[in-house]
């Protein structure tokens, strides 16, 4: 059986950051990801990132992705792409369906001293009449089409949701040459940053608050040719008689994300439900260690946030794994983590962050009360 010091699952910002830290400390790191290319969502983020200028803000997402890949290479991280983890067993034994250069797959079993799960999150669907009609897609899918594959999803687009994903992807669709004809939001206020909304509005695109999509209209070709929106009451129920029809060929859904928990469950980590963070998440401590000894988590898997927090959490997980391997002294690891937590706290300030700060503290407290010290699965 193959042996590795650290197995990192998921090559997005959290997984890359974790791999780099563990690799720099001298660990033998294997990073696996089921996609064609590493970087997670970074390579479709063509906008300049918010955050601290000391930590790559003002840099476009894909450039951050390139920097991380270079650092991972320098840290000696081994990367397997198109490779899927299919089993996590007691004793940290892992089953991986490894993608081979010739396109075939091979089942590999491997034992890792430490496991870091950074599998990200997936988009929520919203169901309405006709929601399975071709032309209805996740906002993330539309973003991948324009920014990675350079294909327009349609000409006239209606976006459901005004969180940062809905606002940013709407802007990028316009940059790609599509027309965004409306944004529709059930809440009475815009969800994302005002500066993102301002870009949409000064381009002349209307934002319908207190509205939802109740139907995707199917054209003769079987694809979307419009949508029906309606006002909603304070319980988010459509109000009869308020329907309006908007002509469009694409409906994109930006209704939030939920943490991807399959491997966390497979590893038998203790979960908790957290609405603001997107659903079930693994309980973890300040070292990003789960209830299972030697199994760490980072990024959106621990609660949906954004790339900056994912990067910082990934670093913590990598440092903590290296510490448990004896590659970093506990004293140094504590100092490094304290610095990172300070930055995480700064990222979780202000009206958009304070709820996440509170929830994170709540999760850490729950861990202390319920778990205390991680449980060995031997």
């Amino acid at each position, binding site marked *: 059986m193959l042996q590795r010091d650290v197995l990192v699952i998921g090559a997005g910002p959290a997984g890359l950051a974790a791999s780099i830290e563990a690799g720099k400390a001298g660990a033998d790191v294997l990073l696996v990801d089921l996609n064609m290319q590493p970087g997670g969502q970074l390579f479709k983020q063509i906008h*300049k990132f918010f955050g601290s200028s000391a930590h790559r803000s*003002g840099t476009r997402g894909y*450039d951050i992705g390139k920097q991380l890949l270079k650092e991972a290479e320098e840290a000696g991280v081994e990367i397997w792409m198109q490779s899927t983890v299919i089993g996590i067993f007691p004793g940290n034994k892992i089953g991986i369906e490894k993608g081979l250069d010739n396109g075939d797959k091979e089942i590999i079993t491997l034992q890792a001293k430490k496991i870091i799960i950074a599998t990200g999150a997936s988009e929520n669907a919203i169901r309405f009449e006709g929601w399975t009609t071709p032309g209805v897609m996740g906002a993330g899918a539309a973003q991948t089409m324009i920014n990675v594959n350079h294909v327009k999803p349609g000409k006239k687009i209606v976006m459901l949701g005004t969180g940062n994903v809905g606002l940013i992807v709407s802007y990028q669709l316009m940059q790609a040459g599509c027309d965004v004809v409306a944004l529709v939001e059930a809440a009475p206020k815009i969800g994302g940053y005002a500066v993102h909304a301002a870009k949409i509005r*000064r381009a002349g695109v209307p934002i319908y608050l207190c509205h939802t999509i109740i139907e995707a209209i199917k054209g003769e070709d079987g694809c979307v040719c419009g949508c029906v929106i309606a006002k909603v009451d304070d319980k988010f129920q459509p109000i009869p008689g308020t329907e309006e029809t908007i002509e469009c060929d694409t409906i994109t859904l930006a209704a939030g994300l939920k943490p991807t928990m399959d491997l966390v469950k497979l590893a038998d980590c203790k979960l908790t439900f957290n609405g603001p963070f997107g659903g079930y998440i693994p309980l973890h401590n300040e070292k990003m260690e789960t209830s299972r000894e030697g199994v760490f988590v980072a990024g959106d898997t621990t609660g949906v946030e954004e790339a900056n927090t994912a990067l910082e959490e990934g670093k913590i997980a990598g440092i903590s794994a290296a510490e448990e391997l004896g590659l970093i002294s506990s004293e140094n690891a504590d100092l490094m983590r304290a610095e990172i937590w300070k930055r995480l706290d700064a990222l979780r300030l202000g*009206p958009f962050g304070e709820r996440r700060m509170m929830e994170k503290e709540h999760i850490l407290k729950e861990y202390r009360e319920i778990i205390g010290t991680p449980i060995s699965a031997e």
Partner: protein
Amino acid sequence: MALINTGYLEYEELSAIQKLPDQDRFAKGPVAIIECVQEIPCNPCEAACPVGAIHVGEPITNLPTLHGEKCTGCGMCVSRCPGLAIVIVNKVYSDTTATVSFPFEYFPIPVVGEERNAMNRKGEILCKGKIVKVMNPAAFDHTPVVTVEIPKEFADEVRTIERIR
């Protein structure tokens, strides 16, 4: 706040939150207007300014503040702001016209001399504008800064030009 219900800032709302340059400062020439009104964790504008005229400090969720007397209106902050929320306004471009320099990340990139529809924060066309400058060096990282000349009375309202489709 009207902003979170509409997506755009009213001038009154902006001037209540951000300390804007006074008339004396406008009389001296180009100056930055920072239309950033929410406490989000972001500070590249502070590092972008070569003369230290923008302050964010700690924590990085502080709103940026502009020191109007230090600001030279150079426009370095305009391309660096991830929120595209800074413009440079020159109210004394000529006796009758002002200029607004704004980030513009759409193709086609305007060219000097072109006449384009100038728009306000709501996306309404206010007037015609003449493109007088387009800066797009590598340091701006694909965020061209476009300067449009417009009648003076629209200087506080014009924030972009119409996108050509």
